[in-house]
């Protein structure tokens, strides 16, 4: 992986983290205000979900060139 590609991956990872945490926070805020009587836990849950999804995407993005994808082939009897 070249340095410029690594830099682009880091940029994408950071942008993705910001968007997902913000989206999770926003969704949690809306649900907290509408259905859950202004409790804190939907906001924390949404932010945590967003962070987890962003981390998963980043991990997959950085590991992608090194992961091998194979498929199981059944033995054919001749």
């Amino acid at each position, binding site marked *: 992986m070249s340095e410029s590609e690594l830099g682009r991956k880091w940029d994408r990872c950071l942008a993705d983290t910001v968007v997902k945490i913000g989206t999770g926070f926003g969704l949690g805020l809306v649900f907290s205000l*509408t259905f859950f009587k202004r409790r804190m836990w939907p906001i924390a849950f949404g932010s945590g979900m967003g962070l987890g999804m962003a981390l998963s995407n980043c991990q997959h993005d950085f590991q992608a060139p090194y992961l091998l994808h194979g498929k199981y082939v059944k033995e054919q009897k001749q």
Partner: protein
Amino acid sequence: MVSPVWSMMRFLIKGSVAGGVVYLVYDQELLGSSNKSQAALQRAEEVVPPAMYQFSQYVCEQTGLKIPQLPAPPKFNFHIRESWNSGIMTVMSALSVAPSKACEYTKEGWEYLKERIK
């Protein structure tokens, strides 16, 4: 009779607001792949500042208040990424030659002291 209708109306309004936000997130693909999120962030960066400026202009026109013009932020030509890499390489090369340089300077210092003592 009024309060069940009112509670139903409140539930429908809340449900529609929450459903609208969920649909917006789904439509803009904010919780999808990282490429889509990056594109959404770039779209937001292009749209939000002019919208904020137009809204502030509208508020100024309606209320008659004048928002003071802030000076433009200074622009830096400092590239952190490039200088970080060259900084790391400089530090590592300095560390690798540090023992031999220390011996050399110690010898020179010792020779200088011997010359001075004579």
